[in-house]
């Protein structure tokens, strides 16, 4: 596993969690302009994450690392490697699906925020979408070491 796309993606996702946390804070304080900007940054950072992930998938594809008939891996560890990549694609694929939902939620919030639907008295949708986004971030916080880091010296 190439370490750098994974590390960069972890940093990107942490940045997006940061902007989402600040978006919730702006909603709490009734700062509409900041809320719109921060939701937009969260969407952009989420898209950057998926872009890098797509690039990784593309290189796995060209290197014949997709489990199945065309899987090719040199050495005696070909079978375990195929199992590893099955886990890799199942875990990161499910995570990416949650990321798509996670980008959809702030997009809907963005439209509502632009219409001025949120105030310090009502920002529950922002708060709940924030919780969802942080949950997806936490999942990646565990996927990153399990898929990219711990297998390096076993």
């Amino acid at each position: 596993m190439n370490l750098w796309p994974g590390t960069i993606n972890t940093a990107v996702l942490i940045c997006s969690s940061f902007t989402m946390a600040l978006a919730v804070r702006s909603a709490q304080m009734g700062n509409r302009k900041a809320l719109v900007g921060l939701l937009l940054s969260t969407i952009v950072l989420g898209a950057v994450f998926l872009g890098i992930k797509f690039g990784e998938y593309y290189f796995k594809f060209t290197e014949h690392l997709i489990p199945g008939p065309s899987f090719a891996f040199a050495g005696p560890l070909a079978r375990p490697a195929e199992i590893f990549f099955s886990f890799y694609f199942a875990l990161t694929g499910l995570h990416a699906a949650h990321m798509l939902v996670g980008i959809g939620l702030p997009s809907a919030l963005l439209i509502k925020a632009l219409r001025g639907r949120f105030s310090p008295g009502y920002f529950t949708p922002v708060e709940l979408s924030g919780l969802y986004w942080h949950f997806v971030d936490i999942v990646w916080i565990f996927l990153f070491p399990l898929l990219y880091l711990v297998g390096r010296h076993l």
Partner: protein
Amino acid sequence: MKSTHVLPLRCYTAVFTLLLGLTLTTTAVSRIDLGSLNVVVALTIAIGKALLVLLYFMHVRYSSRLTWVFAGAGFFWLAILITLITSDVLTRN
């Protein structure tokens, strides 16, 4: 769900900087061969990062005790999963 507690900006920036620092640390440590200790270090850092997100970004620290119980139950379940998987991986030849 009206939360009256607004955290100061510097609390968020401090957590954010810590999270980025821990990410770089865990990547750097993974490049050194520590044997099975690599798993321990990587997962300890991951739990630390998840706790930071949970307590500050998700405001669990400032939530009710009931929220603590539910968040704790989720972590307990995760601990079971990771313990069972690593006990398999680490006892293989």
